[in-house]
């Protein structure tokens, strides 16, 4: 989230789209309700009328996979009706930039596309720069070649009639949503978006979000209280696990994973450091080498020296351009190329798209280590349905671990609040905290490598001293490492620090090896003031619900990011009633400002608000993505229509299509005529492997079900409560039918399209007669930027069992 949970109460209009927050982030509704109590409007846009829709002032249905069409229509509405916040757009976004002449868009394709590689050459989307290297700008926004006019032209095609035909949303509903939301384009109104996997689990996932980011920039909603782009993250610490870099392409703090072409630290630091010629752009990423070097010092400690490139060579290098993410990982595993596997606190046998492929892939492993608090379909895959244990040679280690209340440490919520939590009791039986398990395992591995083995350097040189005097895992030691230390006596900015002192904040980190820091964005979390993550003070000086002394948030406790956009060029809040930030007597008052520099009207020292972007401005034109600088509607890989009404390009032209025997997909086929989607229920958690073992929760949600419209039920002769089978070309699942008014057929021109939906929280292990995982149905195709699978839109059949 750019903002945070309590801030929702400051909003005048909350759009919940690509999310069913009432069911999946239930307590967020406390703050949504408070906003409503203050007169805010709640809009729910969802293929199905959900618990969120039940509380919404406006509900609009749309077919799964058509969000860009819906939102593209909103962009057109905002521009046609002059609803955008002009001063904000001109001064804080790249609307005035001018892309190079060779930028073009025609019939679904941007210029620079290579059909052989299915990739774009993004030099076709470059921005024109003047002789000083600063982007050319047309602040009148009238030049037909400027971003604003190109935006207008691009979305001129998203007429209400066209959008309605694609989404199945009645034109009246579209207009109502557009009118209500676009009203937040004034200085005194804030609109916010709450989105989740309903947007990300698509082959156009990132572009879904981009469309909304453009809307928020047009309306001046970024960086203000009650505004922002609020990603409702899924898990209690998925924010933290992403922050700590547990993805192939990033190191802790979102530093890019070094690739095979970057042979030295110098080459790496050069590659990750963007440049700007504009003195008004803070270009904060120019500091990244300080963070990469400090990270290397945390990895290797004293072993990292300037002579050995701070141990840069000990990091493994993925090949440039090769993707090692989830879908590719399981594809390789299915091909037998992965021999050993750690499924640590995860249940891919039920959470992986095309789960049959995942389960069969597991059977090809030599060994599997499964760490969990309950038995699950992954660790026990070898006794699952369709598995013959005699034929499966995989050695499996099931390691019992501690539950959340049996250990001490921090987790980061979606609002970037890093909260410390405490141990209530010891873990039961032989179960151990994960920190203990990984500590012991690495100690044992190092023991083996001391005797010899392939390239032992990184293993033996890893700093691995995160234990207390008793040899037990010590979370505080790690937390302090994430904050960072001075490794020698220094004086920085007139302040003196001794070797071993904690670094106060990331502004003090150095690129010369004199500081270590496990994660630059966590720098300040545990410094000389103590464990800031454990704070419990309820002061709220701005009255906006920031609670700056309750726990700690990254970066540097800035509660709402991009907050320099919440003020005008003189540093005065656009809306004085919600003073998030204010320039008073030569300093900023309110939230932690996005950099200490004075307001933009200070032509010498002022800075643009979007300090993480090299150009300093919010990207309406976004050339850094795989599939285009403007979002464009494409159909899901499996879709119910014979053609894309928006262009001749049917599906996202840059997605990877897997072509193996298990990678089947089928579109517009009479055998699978209905749109299928997956979602969750409040009572179960993800694959259900924690909650399906709990009697109170199973009592409330005991069995796999599918929700379908009364019309579709009639078509298929299905009554409420009947046992039915839902199938795709990849698999089938037995469900109880919930026949409901909350799914309605979509009228898309002459077509009537039916949609059904299922939760993905069940699995064969428990409860008896609970049902199986909806992921047996979903396709393994992903967004071209993130490779998140398209679990939200695929084609199914439904029949009475």
């Amino acid at each position, binding site marked *: 989230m750019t903002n945070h949970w309590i801030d929702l109460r400051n909003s005048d209009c909350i759009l919940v789209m690509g999310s069913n927050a*009432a*069911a999946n982030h*239930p*307590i967020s*509704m*406390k703050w*949504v*309700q408070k906003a409503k109590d203050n007169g805010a409007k709640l809009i729910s846009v969802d293929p199905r*009328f*959900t*618990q*969120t*829709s*039940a*509380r919404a002032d406006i*509900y609009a249905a749309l077919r799964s996979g058509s969000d860009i069409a819906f939102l593209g229509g909103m962009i057109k509405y905002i521009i046609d009706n002059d609803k955008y916040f002009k001063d904000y757009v001109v001064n804080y976004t790249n609307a005035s930039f001018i892309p190079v002449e060779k930028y073009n868009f025609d019939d679904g394709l941007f210029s620079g596309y290579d059909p052989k590689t299915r990739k774009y050459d993004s030099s076709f989307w470059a921005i024109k720069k003047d002789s000083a290297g600063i982007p050319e700008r047309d602040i009148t926004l009238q030049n037909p070649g400027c971003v604003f006019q190109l935006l207008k032209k691009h979305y001129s095609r998203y007429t209400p009639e066209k959008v309605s035909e694609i989404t199945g949303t009645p034109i009246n509903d579209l207009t109502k949503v557009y009118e209500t939301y676009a009203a937040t384009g004034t200085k005194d109104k804030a609109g916010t978006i709450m989105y989740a996997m309903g947007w990300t689990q698509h082959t156009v996932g990132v572009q879904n979000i981009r469309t909304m980011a453009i809307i928020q920039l047009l309306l001046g909603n970024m960086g203000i209280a009650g505004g922002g782009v609020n990603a409702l993250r899924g898990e209690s610490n998925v924010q933290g696990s992403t922050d700590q870099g547990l993805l192939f392409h990033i190191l802790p703090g979102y530093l890019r994973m070094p690739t095979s072409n970057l042979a030295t630290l110098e080459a790496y630091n050069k590659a990750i450091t963007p440049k700007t010629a504009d003195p008004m752009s803070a270009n904060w990423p120019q500091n990244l080498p300080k963070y990469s070097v400090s990270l290397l010092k945390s990895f290797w400690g004293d072993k990292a020296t300037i002579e050995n490139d701070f141990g840069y060579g000990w990091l493994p290098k993925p090949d440039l351009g090769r993707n090692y993410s989830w879908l590719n990982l399981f594809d390789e595993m299915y091909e037998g190329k992965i021999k050993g596997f750690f499924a640590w606190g995860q249940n891919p046998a039920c959470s992986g798209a095309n789960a049959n492929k995942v389960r069969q892939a597991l059977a090809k492993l030599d060994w599997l280590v499964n760490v969990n608090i309950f038995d699950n379909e992954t660790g026990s895959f070898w006794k699952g349905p369709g598995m013959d244990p005699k034929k499966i040679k995989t050695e499996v280690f099931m390691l019992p671990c501690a539950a959340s209340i049996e250990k001490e440490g921090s987790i980061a919520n979606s609002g970037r609040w890093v909260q410390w939590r405490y141990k209530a009791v010891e873990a039961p039986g032989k179960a151990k905290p994960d920190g203990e398990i990984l500590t012991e395992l690495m100690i044992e591995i190092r023991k083996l490598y001391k005797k010899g083995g392939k390239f032992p350097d990184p293993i033996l040189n890893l700093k691995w001293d995160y234990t207390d005097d008793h040899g037990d895992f010590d979370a505080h030691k790690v937390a302090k490492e994430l904050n960072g230390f001075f490794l020698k006596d220094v004086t920085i900015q007139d302040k003196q620090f001794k070797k071993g002192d904690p670094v106060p904040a990331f502004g003090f980190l150095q690129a010369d090896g004199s500081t270590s820091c496990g994660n630059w964005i966590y720098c300040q979390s545990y410094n000389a003031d103590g464990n800031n993550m454990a704070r419990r003070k309820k002061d709220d000086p701005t009255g906006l619900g920031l609670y700056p002394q309750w726990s700690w948030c990254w970066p540097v406790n800035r509660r709402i990011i991009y907050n320099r956009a919440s003020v005008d060029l003189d540093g005065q809040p656009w809306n004085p009633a919600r003073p998030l930030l204010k320039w008073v007597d030569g300093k900023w008052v309110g939230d932690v400002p996005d950099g200490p520099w004075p307001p933009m009207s200070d032509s010498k020292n002022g800075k643009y608000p979007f300090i993480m972007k090299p150009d300093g401005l919010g990207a309406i034109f976004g050339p850094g993505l795989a599939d285009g600088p403007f979002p464009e509607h494409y159909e899901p890989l499996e879709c119910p229509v014979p053609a894309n009404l928006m262009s001749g390009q049917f599906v996202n032209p840059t997605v990877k299509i897997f072509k193996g025997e298990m990678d089947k997909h089928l579109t517009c086929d009479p055998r699978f005529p209905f749109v299928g989607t997956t979602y969750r*229920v*409040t*009572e179960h958690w993800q694959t259900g492997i924690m909650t399906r073992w*709990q*009697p*109170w*929760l*199973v*009592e*409330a*949600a*005991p*069995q*796999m*079900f599918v929700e379908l419209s009364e019309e579709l039920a009639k078509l298929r002769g299905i*009554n*409420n*409560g*009947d046992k039915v089978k839902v199938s795709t070309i990849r698999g089938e699942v037995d469900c*109880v*039918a*919930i*026949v*409901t*008014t*909350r799914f*309605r057929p979509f009228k898309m021109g002459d077509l009537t399209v039916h949609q059904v939906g299922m939760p993905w929280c069940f699995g064969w292990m428990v409860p008896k*007669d609970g049902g199986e995982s909806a992921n047996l149905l979903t396709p393994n195709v992903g967004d071209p930027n993130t490779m998140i699978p398209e679990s939200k839109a695929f084609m199914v059949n439904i029949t009475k069992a």
Partner: protein
Amino acid sequence: MAEGYSILVDTSKCTACRGCQVGCKQWNELPGTQTKNVGSYENPQDLSFETYKVVRFAEGSNGDGKPYWNFFSEQCRHCLSPGCMAASEKDEIVQDEKTGAVLFTPETKNLDFKATLEGCPYNIPRQDPKTKVLSKCTMCFDRITNGMIPACVKSCPTGAMQFGERDKVLDVSKKRVEELKKTFPKAIAINPDDVRVIYIVTNDPKTYWKFAAGK
């Protein structure tokens, strides 16, 4: 009596998160019962001697053709003149003077269950088939006599459930109904003069649960 406590259940704010349903089980150490999905999110299917609070789900179509989904988090109303007490002669059922909580004691095993149930306008009392003891919501008597609020009220995120002094709750209820009437002309508080657990609905109570306003 006008003193004592009341619980307000404002269904216009309920999101069916079932924190109340599970919170009640957690506090009262009640087991999870065996259930099946019969074509609804609603489970368990009914109150029982092991389930004092159940969220009812009801859906349909509005006049404007849009769907509705009503949530009614059912529990004992803790009536001011409890109908269940008519069958109780030896304080098997007591009504606490200070709080107004209506409590089933273990002596209810000696009562005529059918008569007791029939006496209740809201179909609340349930019997343990083994011990014959009757049970239902206790208004978390142990909590409210120890400076705490009922477990269900505490768990409610949106303020759909509130707890406090009866006259204040009645006041809040009245104001809320007036507010809601602007958008939902049929909004009412259900039998506020007769019960301590007051439900606010925005439509005919029968569109929430058949016994929402009584049998």
